[in-house]
């Protein structure tokens, strides 16, 4: 009975703590759950669920100073050896056969519903400003709802709606919109497990809103804090990577 009496008080405290943070700080807290720091490494598996079959791609991703990412394609064989580099807002892809890194835009698709920017950039706060829209319940979770708008024209999406659990800031759901306001895809953050001292979502399900019925699953693994030499994040270094 006593516990029940304290519960509303606890919720008020959590809520007041949440709303004492600025939207930018809330977004940073959400990002800290998705990324264990500014410099880390992880493996990524993307499964593109089609009508009759699954298409799988695997990658190793190295992140440095939060805004630099190097993505190495490890599966399937046809794509093995490809490298994808993102530095700030700039992106290049290196396909061994083509012999030169090619500049690409964030909107270009990697596989299924996944854009280049989705793989290379784990955090939102680098590219988006946040605005608090209020609270909503998603499933069993009481969530805060943020609206993210691009800091620059190079951001992959024109608008993102992001829901995160009030008490933990765990991201739960996100909606991604085009410049015309059309809903492009919806993502659900799942598979929470303790990694590097925090509960982190290791599964991301992304549903295509333009091609209903199709969706992709991003699975993160082997996440660890590890540094990568600075030179690896130079476009001209890509062809020398062993």
């Amino acid at each position, binding site marked *: 009975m006593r516990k029940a009496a304290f519960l509303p008080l606890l919720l008020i405290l959590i809520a007041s703590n949440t709303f004492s943070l600025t939207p930018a700080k809330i977004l940073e807290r959400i990002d800290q759950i998705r990324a264990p720091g500014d410099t880390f490494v992880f493996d990524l598996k993307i499964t593109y669920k*089609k*009508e009759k079959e699954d298409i799988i791609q695997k990658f190793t991703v190295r992140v440095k100073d939060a805004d630099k990412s190097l993505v190495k394609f490890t599966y*399937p*064989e*046809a794509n*093995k*050896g490809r490298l994808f580099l993102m*530095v*700030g*807002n*700039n*992106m290049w892809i290196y396909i*061994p*056969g*083509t*012999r*030169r890194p090619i*500049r*690409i*835009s*964030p*909107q*270009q*698709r990697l596989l299924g519903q996944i854009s280049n*920017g989705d793989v290379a950039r784990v955090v939102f706060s680098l590219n988006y400003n946040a605005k608090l829209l209020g609270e909503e319940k998603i499933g069993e979770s009481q969530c805060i709802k943020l609206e993210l708008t*691009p800091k620059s*024209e*190079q*951001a*992959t*999406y*024109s608008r993102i709606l992001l829901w995160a659990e009030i008490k933990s800031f765990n991201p739960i759901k996100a909606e991604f919109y*085009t410049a015309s306001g*059309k809903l*492009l895809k919806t993502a659900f953050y799942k598979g929470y497990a303790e990694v590097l001292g925090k509960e982190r979502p290791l599964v991301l399900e992304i549903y295509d809103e*333009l091609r209903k019925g199709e969706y992709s699953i991003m699975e993160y693994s082997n996440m660890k804090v590890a540094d990568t*030499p*600075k*030179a690896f994040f*130079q*476009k*001209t*270094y890509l062809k*020398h990577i*062993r």
Partner: protein
Amino acid sequence: MKVHLLRRIAILVLLSFSIPVNASVFDENLRLEYRVEFINQTTYYQLRNDTLLNPDSKLTSFPKWKNKLYKDVSINLTYKEWLKLVVKSRPTWTINNEEESSLKNYVDDAYVDIKLKNPIFLTIGKENIQEGVGLSYNPTDFLSEGKDVDYSQREEERKQDREGNYLVRFESIGDKITFSCIVAPKIDNLQKESPRYQMRLYSLVGDTDVTFSYFHGRHSKLGLNLSGIVGSNTELHTEIGLTKGSEREFLRKKREVGPPNSGIYEYEAYNPSDKGDIFVRSIIGGHYTSANKTNLIVEYFFNEDGYSKSEWDVFIEMVKDASSNFKSPPAGFPQGIFKENLRIANSLMTFRSLRKNYLFFRLSNPELFNYYDSQLSLLLNVDDGSCVVMPSVDYKRFKNLVLRFGVDWFCGDSQSEFGLVPRDTELQLEVKYFF
């Protein structure tokens, strides 16, 4: 008999080393990556019966179909992160309807890449270096200009399979600037071109890639490449090459033959004497990606070293004369004179960059109806209105197997660039198996 023997040798060579190993690790220090693709490409040509350069198809005969079977082998051997050996070769067997057959091994890469000190690299061997940011035209791809490419491939694939140059390259990759220096020497029996040197500076300035290059060979050249992103879905690029001296060749009357004032001439090809002039070649373009994965690429390119309208008109008039005289030689003149004149004219045909102004368009979607990587490309000669239309589709339903069907349509009147191509349609079926 010879063809049968070649066929057997071809199959033997192409099937050798076909062990399905694509990546092996011997130990922590020595790593081997191995990749093989088998490609069979069958091309059917719908020939033009009568063109100015091949009147009534009597000057030369072109094959009606060609089959090319080749194996693309790539090997990367890495030792302790400081040494990398790269080999890429293409044993290729071709045969056409006239049973002309050839077996040749093309070596695109065979070099060692040594990390002297992070991040300084020394590369020695044969390497197919590809420079530039344009898709349909690369005026700063100085080192490999003139090397054969397969125009039946998609634009981005054409230069992947191209024989390399023997060279030594030093490359220093700094935080802000990458500097590289290449020496491609003349080597008896291996590399007949005069020695070539290239220096290259690269930097990311703001959000723009900037590459500056200086090339010294038979001609001195300067190059500038710029590329960047506008918004989240548009890439823009430009590439400018300046060449000291012209590389084009013209047709001219060498001497009058027969009695005085016969009006019959022997032709010759010649390089104009404007060696001191600077010629500009450039491309500007963009790549837009829509939310539904559709890509639109538009490029305009300019070749100052191409034929102007007056130069083209002179060329066409001479070809018309040679062509009509070849069909009906004037009394007392052997057909051989006109045949040779037409042969020289044919040797000057470098289709796809003969004139000065071109537009390139491509509409593509890599996942149309899930399994079809499809595209429609168009190269338009703005100067004479002729064009080549290139639709193609890759079917990717099967694992490790890609089927491609492509068509090239050459359109234009008989006196235009693409109207002079000896075929009006190319149909191509390609099967690619990789492991």
